[in-house]
């Protein structure tokens, strides 16, 4: 699927990691973009596009975070197998600062429930936006910490020892900011499609019209995010190739630039920008383009994840680790995992289908 000239076992675990990570990322994007929208445009009238987006995300944010956390367990499992020693070391070095993402997520979770309950929308709208802003910052902090952990894991033992001796629990490198901006900039594009689909479904189920300005609004938000992402990525590539960051070598950067993923990734970003621009010009195109954009968004994220992991693999994975991956793959249980993945996916789809059917029937009955 993603040939990296790696042995099958390592490639297999890497693919599992990347795919499950992207699923997790898409759900986290929903929370990130949703809370951003509520924080910035929280006061919008419910008849406007912004107001409809707010209504929709309020309702779905707690579920999205819950699903994101559940989806995040799988990549957390596979990353441990892939990188083992280096991953664990970065975790330990960041210590309780790394672990602080958990209480922060708990607080964010309850913040989302407060938003869903609309406790302060009418009485104290500023408080409602403040909560949204707080949750947004929480998610930003979690994303930042993940990047920090990632970058610390690829450093040398000398850097680790120095970091440990200093007693610091923050790892700072100027690489973090462009990386975070590159990733999170894409949040709006992939989430905008979901918002559009959700509001379209409301039209069918509740006979609510789609606000006319919705496609343009989604196009502006997505394009802005994608441009931030693209600029940050170009800056990052330039910085790596010029050896601006300590601990990186230009050899590694040149190796990175030889791989196809980086070009596919940039193409994906451009493709999305182009499509959103056409929607901004002709909003009618959104229903047709949404499927292309969804696919492009997912593929761009996959390519981006591959670029990131390619860099990590080149710095961490040794022959010894390759052999260990080979050994781990022999462990019993993989076919059972595959079987349960299929069975449970089908079961989840069936449960959603029968529940929706029942709800639809009850709505029809109420109408009659």
């Amino acid at each position, binding site marked *: 699927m993603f040939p990296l000239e790696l042995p099958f076992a390592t490639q297999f675990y890497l693919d599992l990691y990347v795919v499950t990570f992207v699923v997790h990322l898409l759900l986290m994007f929903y929370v990130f973009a949703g809370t951003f929208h509520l924080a910035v445009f929280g006061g919008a009238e419910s008849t406007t596009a912004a107001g409809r987006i707010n209504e929709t995300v309020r309702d779905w944010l707690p579920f999205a975070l819950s699903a994101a956390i559940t989806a995040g367990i799988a990549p957390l499992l596979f990353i441990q197998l892939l990188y083992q020693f280096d991953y664990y070391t970065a975790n330990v070095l960041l210590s309780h600062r790394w672990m602080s993402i958990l209480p922060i997520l708990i607080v964010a979770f309850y913040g989302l429930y407060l938003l869903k309950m609309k406790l302060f929308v009418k009485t104290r709208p500023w408080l409602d936006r403040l909560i949204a802003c707080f949750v947004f910052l929480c998610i930003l902090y979690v994303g930042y910490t993940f990047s920090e952990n990632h970058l610390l894991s690829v450093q040398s033992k000398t850097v680790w020892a120095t970091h440990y001796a200093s007693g610091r629990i923050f790892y700072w490198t100027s690489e973090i900011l462009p990386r975070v901006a590159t990733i999170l900039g894409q949040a709006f594009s992939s989430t905008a499609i979901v918002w559009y689909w959700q509001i379209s479904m409301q039209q069918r189920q509740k006979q609510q019209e789609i606000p006319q300005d919705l496609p343009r609004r989604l196009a502006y938000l997505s394009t802005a995010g994608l441009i931030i992402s693209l600029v940050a990525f170009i800056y990052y590539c330039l910085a790596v190739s010029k050896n601006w960051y300590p601990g990186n070598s230009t050899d590694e950067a040149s190796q990175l630039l030889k791989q196809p993923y980086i070009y596919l990734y940039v193409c994906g970003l451009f493709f999305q920008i182009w499509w959103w621009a056409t929607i901004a010009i002709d909003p009618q195109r959104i229903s047709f383009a949404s499927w292309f954009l969804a696919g492009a968004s997912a593929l761009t994220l996959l390519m981006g994840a591959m670029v990131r992991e390619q860099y990590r693999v080149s710095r961490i994975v040794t022959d010894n680790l390759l052999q260990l991956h080979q050994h781990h793959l022999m462990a019993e249980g993989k076919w059972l995992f595959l079987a349960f*993945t299929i069975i449970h996916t089908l079961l*989840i789809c069936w449960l959603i289908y029968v529940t929706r059917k*029942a709800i639809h029937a009850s709505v029809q009955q109420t109408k009659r």
Partner: protein
Amino acid sequence: MEIYPMQDYGPAMKGMLIGGLGIFHVFLAQFAIGGGFLMAYFQFLYQTDRLKSGRSFTDEYFRILVLISFVIGALTGVGMWFTSIQISPRTIGVMVQEFHWIWAIEWTYFCLEIASGYLFYRYGPRLGNGLRLQLLIVYALAAWFSLFYINGILSWQLTPGDWLEKHTVWSGFFNPTFFPSLIMRTVTSLATSALVACLVINLSHYEPAVKRELIQKATNLLLPLALLLPTGVWFFSVIPEDSREWVMGGSIAMTLFMTLGLVCSLLIAAYAFVVLKWQKLTLNAGTATLLLSLAFLATAGAEFVREGVRKPYTIREYLYCNSLRQDELSRLRQTGLQNVDPYPVREKFEKHGEILTHGAKVFRFQCSICHTRNGANGLASLTQTWTDEQIRLNVAQLQRTKAFMPPFAGNARDVEALTQYLRYLRNPQTFEVSADSGRADVLARINHWLEDVGTTPGIELAKQH
């Protein structure tokens, strides 16, 4: 050998961190697992006209379950992984490497649990009875199977069984304590969910008669507590003999925690059988809270014992609690520790820096997993009255000092450095290195003690005597 950095948590023992979070998480997980069965049971009673308020109560109970278990329960679960990595990355590394497909299977059950749970939470009040029951059954089974899989991994740590020879997943998974653990955890989950239900019923706005009826039905899930005692006996009959001895008085802390768990469980069971079922009395919010607190204490006691009886291992007969394997430990006896740990010591010493830095590294590498310097289980106070010779002997023959400690992994110079560091911890201001420290005859004596005891674990030595 790959060495991990080790963080210092001041006066808190590392075990306290993982234990505290672990107990909290297990309790919430029990609530979620038992809760699924309780709601399915109530929905079934409602559908068969045996509990009129069963449907409305199920909706109310599920809202609480979602707000508590789906949020804190889920995140403390991830927190267990994170904390395990902080405390013993090597242990969690072995567990993940050996059982990653089991964990991956468990994850598919989590997905099913979340999907069915949210469908019920969101649409349940608008659904017909048949579909509601289906969703609840899927939710309950998914939650229980997540217990089934994690139970195999956790019980393997204490009783790896045939895995030590075969190294296959299923030989480790279906280990000697798998089934008794599974039954005990299932019974405890049902009891926890019943007690939470009693509290929720009391705090709800139902009529007294309805509350009484709901409580009577909820407490039916306390009846399986009758299985706890025979299953407990089964569990203790299959754990290693030395582990059993710790609980039966060999380690007073473990005996106390075991007693705590046992007494609390018996009190809950006695109340359930005598007061609730025989006398057919009801219980108010205060009593429900008290019983729930006892259930929490019972969970705490049982989890402490489960973690404690593995000593001196984190994975029985495979990995010591200081993250060393037997072959590595034997090798360190020859090579010494001094150049093994690449991470500098953060403490600054005004005098005698070389030997104290060395000693601090030995402490960090071997002792800090279970001991602190001056806090909980602090070595400064534990060794306060010991003479220098006593420290040297007790450290060199650690497994004789306490059979649940691993053999010392290092050479005579490491023992001596640790001895001086422990003396320093008692009174850093006035500390001076012992006059005989580093002398050839002292090192020869330590060497003799090290060779005399060898690297055989204390639990093996105890059997030989």
